[in-house]
């Protein structure tokens, strides 16, 4: 055997989390084939794999591996953990829904775990090709998950729309990679940075290339004007999937976007990039909140709210620098908790899959589902950014960053739009508690896992708001080297 092609143990070890997830997924698939009776425990097994991956992420030695295609650092570890948190929530909420819909199968946890693996690679990737493949890997998993409810049209439609848009955008992405590669001669972030520093390449083409890359990931983040898919997909896809789909890919994509922005912003091409991000942020906050205001479907409302939240996440990037990471991570973790929590509860208390999840159906259910409604309220309050919740903590850091770096206007837009946000988040709360019940819920499934998921999400949202010190220290430690 030619030693040239061998893989060192160290390199394999550096891939431990992804390997655990991949192997775990495959194992579950095999169990599905050979021991379908164990289906009910698949998700718990999946959780174990996620936990193992999380442990490996935490213990991963820092540094590049695989010829510098990926790297590990405390930063990637932090975002990876956020991804894994989302994956865990996605696993916890699903079985109830799936078994009610008679979809319980090993494919679901397998796809979720693989998707998580792809996401981790996306977080860690520092080379465009790796990023692209990781993105496609996770996207394919997500297409499958979005269409997981294969018997209903809305799920299929959501998957198809997501897929077609995703494919369309990946064509742009590849073209962007081509341009950047062609003009800089490298696909590695470092190489590109070096080339940019040298002033190599045509600025116009580079600009276009980076713009295409940025737009590709902005599409994943559902930033305006690349947002339009999100409401349709969230609404149509199975709710437990959305709990995962609406948060995890965003965490990972943000990492890539921040890397790209930092790469470009520090280069001679930098110029208008911060303004570009400010523009995207403002547009997302405005459009997201405005459109969410008029939604009557809770999933769609949360989708638009997600668009808006990604706008808030972008605020720190309007003044990019290594300091941008911290508010972004804080906001994202808060977002993972509250948004996944909201979708988790939607999963449980709405009895019908499909496109209808009217907010008005919630009327009076606050007293029927005291625990879940309480958790949903906490999530809504958190999404609205009212202290003492994680959502407020996130907004605090984001606005602080804006003020610190002279983006007061953006902060003011953020305020104005979050005021609109308050209006529609509160609508959920008043439906729950202040309206008489109009229709008894039917077909709802409240299983242990889902309840745990909801409590984790809501409790986490509260805890992060009330006592954020431990979390923030961890965040700070993650960015120590920057």
């Amino acid at each position, binding site marked *: 055997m030619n030693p040239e092609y061998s893989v060192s143990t160290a390199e394999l070890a550096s891939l431990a989390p992804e390997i655990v997830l991949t192997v775990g997924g495959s194992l579950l698939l095999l169990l599905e084939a050979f021991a379908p009776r164990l289906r009910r425990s698949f998700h718990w097994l999946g959780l174990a794999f996620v936990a193992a991956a999380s442990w490996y992420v935490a213990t991963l030695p820092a540094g590049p591996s695989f010829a510098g295609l990926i790297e590990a650092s405390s930063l990637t570890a932090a975002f990876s953990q956020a991804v894994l948190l989302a994956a865990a929530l996605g696993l916890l909420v699903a079985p109830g829904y799936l078994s009610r819909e008679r979809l319980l199968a090993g494919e679901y946890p397998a796809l979720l775990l693989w998707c998580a693996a792809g996401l981790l690679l996306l977080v860690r990737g520092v080379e465009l090709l790796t990023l692209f493949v990781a993105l496609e890997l996770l996207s394919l998993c997500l297409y499958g998950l979005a269409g997981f409810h294969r018997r209903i049209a809305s799920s299929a439609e959501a998957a198809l729309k997501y897929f077609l848009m995703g494919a369309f955008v990946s064509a*742009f992405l590849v073209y962007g990679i081509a341009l950047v590669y062609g003009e800089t001669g490298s696909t590695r972030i470092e190489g590109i940075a070096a080339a940019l520093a040298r002033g190599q390449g045509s600025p*116009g083409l580079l600009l276009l290339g980076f713009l295409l890359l940025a737009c590709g990931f902005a599409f994943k983040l559902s930033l305006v004007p690349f947002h339009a898919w999100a409401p349709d997909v969230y609404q149509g896809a199975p709710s437990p999937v959305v709990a995962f789909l609406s948060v995890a890919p965003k965490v990972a994509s943000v990492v890539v976007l921040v890397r790209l922005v930092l790469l470009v912003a520090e280069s001679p091409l930098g110029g208008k990039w911060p303004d570009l991000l400010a523009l995207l942020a403002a547009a997302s906050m405005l459009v997201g909140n*405005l459109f969410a205001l008029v939604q009557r479907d809770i999933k769609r409302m949360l989708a638009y709210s997600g668009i808006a939240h990604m706008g808030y996440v972008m605020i720190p990037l309007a003044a990019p620098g290594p300091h941008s990471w911290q508010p972004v991570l804080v906001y994202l973790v808060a977002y993972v908790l509250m948004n996944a929590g909201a979708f988790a509860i939607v999963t449980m208390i709405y009895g019908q899959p499909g496109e209808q999840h009217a907010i008005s159906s919630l009327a009076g259910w606050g007293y029927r589902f005291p625990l879940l409604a309480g958790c949903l309220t906490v999530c809504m309050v958190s999404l609205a950014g009212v202290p003492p919740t994680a959502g407020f903590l996130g907004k605090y850091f984001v606005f602080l960053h804006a003020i610190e770096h002279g983006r007061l206007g953006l902060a003011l837009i953020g305020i104005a739009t979050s005021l609109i946000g308050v209006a529609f988040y509160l609508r959920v709360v008043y439906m729950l508690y202040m309206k008489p019940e109009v229709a008894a819920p039917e077909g709802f499934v409240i299983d242990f896992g889902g309840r745990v998921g909801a409590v984790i999400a809501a409790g986490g949202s509260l805890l992060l708001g009330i006592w954020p010190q431990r979390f923030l220290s961890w965040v700070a430690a993650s960015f120590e080297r920057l």
Partner: protein
Amino acid sequence: MDALSLLWWIPALPFLGAAVNGLLVRNGQKGLVTFVGLAAPGASMLLGLTAIWQYATGLAPEPLRQAVYSWTVGEMSIDVAFRLDPLSAVMTFVVTVVGFLIHVYSVGYMGREEGYRRYFSFLNLFMGAMLLLVLGSNFLVMFVGWEGVGLCSYLLIGYYFDQEFPPEAGKKAFVVNRIGDFAFLVGMLALFASFGTLEFGEITERVLAAPEIAKAPYVFGLSLAGFVTLCLFIGAMGKSAQIPLYVWLPDAMAGPTPVSALIHAATMVTAGVYMVVRTNVLYQLAPEISLFVAGIGAATAIFAATIGLAQNDIKKVLAYSTVSQLGYMFLAAGVGAYVAAIFHLATHAFFKALLFLGSGSVIHAMGGEQDMQKMGGLRKHLPLTYPTYLIATLAIAGIPPLAGFFSKDEILAGAFAGHHHLIWGVGILTAGLTACYMFRSVYLTFHGSFRGSHEQEHHLHESPKVMTVPLVLLALGAVTAGWIGIPTGLWEMAGFADHNVLHHFLSPVIATLPGVDTGHHLSHSTELLLMLVSVAVALGGWLVAKRLWGGERGLAADRTFAERLPFVQRLLANKYYVDELYDRVIVRPLAGLARGCWKIVDTLLIDGALHVGAFVTELTGDLGRFSTTGNIRNYALYFFAGVLLLFWWMIF
């Protein structure tokens, strides 16, 4: 007993009585109510009289100040303190004595009322507040009493709360009083801001020490003294029912008659006069305001007197008479005859209380009827009420040697001496009118033949002892009260030493300012002439009344008058339409403004703007969301276009 050191108990006792009756005693315990209700003001009266005696006979004529506790702290440290000086002594005397008598009278008058306990509680409360007002050593305590009596007036006017009108009248009284109070408050603010204190004594001292401060221009071309006195006088206008704030007093007659006697004749309404005299040092420094006071007083006096001529409700007649007499007092204060003002206040307290109680007795006898058109010939049924009422009428008409003569004469003399001849003329005219309408009431009520229904006639009876004894005592006062102020001129003419007790007693509280000329003295002959003129006018008024309404003539004169001069009659009977005027000019526009604020500013403009904002926001969202067409070709186009636009934006 050292009554002086117990000064604060004088107002405290009635308060205590009010509290006990109000909170502890139960409705059924009538005897207990009576006991507490009488004991409190009675004890207060005894204490007050003793204190006055001890003060008056004391060696040092220095005002006595007793601080009970400090009300507030810091820069604005104001004590709850009481002050006994000649002025407050006179007032205390009047208030406690007349008050106590009316309390006693009430036992009989209100005996069968359901709210007996409530009544006594309120009446005691009133006594306490009134004593607070007169004994207070600073403006703040005075103001507490000032508003306190207003409150009691409100509560007692509205005593018959289950009827439509009395509570309305009470409200009117309170509100109109408040209008005055607000000016009072502003005056106090100005005083405090300028002098840093609200103590009467300190303010007087400082003004005397440096009058130029008070004379310095303040606002609107007024001096500080001018501004303050104007404000205070507006306060007095409200409380003492002067034009244009008199409108509440006639309505206040809706309360029980003893209340009218005590509050709306003898004590509370005179508080304004008391205050003006109390602050005479400032008024002396503001001659223009003093003149204004005199003018308002004179105008009120004659204005109310003309209305009184045309009223048929016995209490309304007395009410307008009160307004008119209060005008007199202000006239006196305005022309600088402060002692005369207090003198008239005191005598008026007796005879007006007596008149009201007498009318109460009449009403009691008539079973609640107040319309003089239904009365007549009552003198034979009411053997005690009639003479006392007559004495009071003679007193108010200014027939010597009854109380009213001396006080009224002194006022007119004061006006004449101050060369305010026009005012004097108005005063003398009013005196004639007073005699005329008061005797009208006497004739219509007691003379002629009975005009009421048979049941009423059957029911007629003299009131019980508990009511008539106070009448007699008050009549005694109405006869003799004037003798404490027999004019200096008369004494001297008769060859005696000056025994004008009141003048001597009150002289310490009337400030003598170096630059202010108060020394108008009339020659004895002029004084005598004036007296004769006023007596003649009073007698003339009486004679006119006798000619018009005396004997069996009854209401014929009124009917003739109404036929001949319907317009004037209507004008007078409807009190010059002043209430209607206020309603049209002030109340309704204000209510319209308020409604406008509510419906237009609040609902339409502010909320409307918010709703429009919300609507526009929602509309934007609602229109905008149709961009999410559900067709991914559009989404792809957004992406493509977005990329291109951003690229375009980036390269330019």
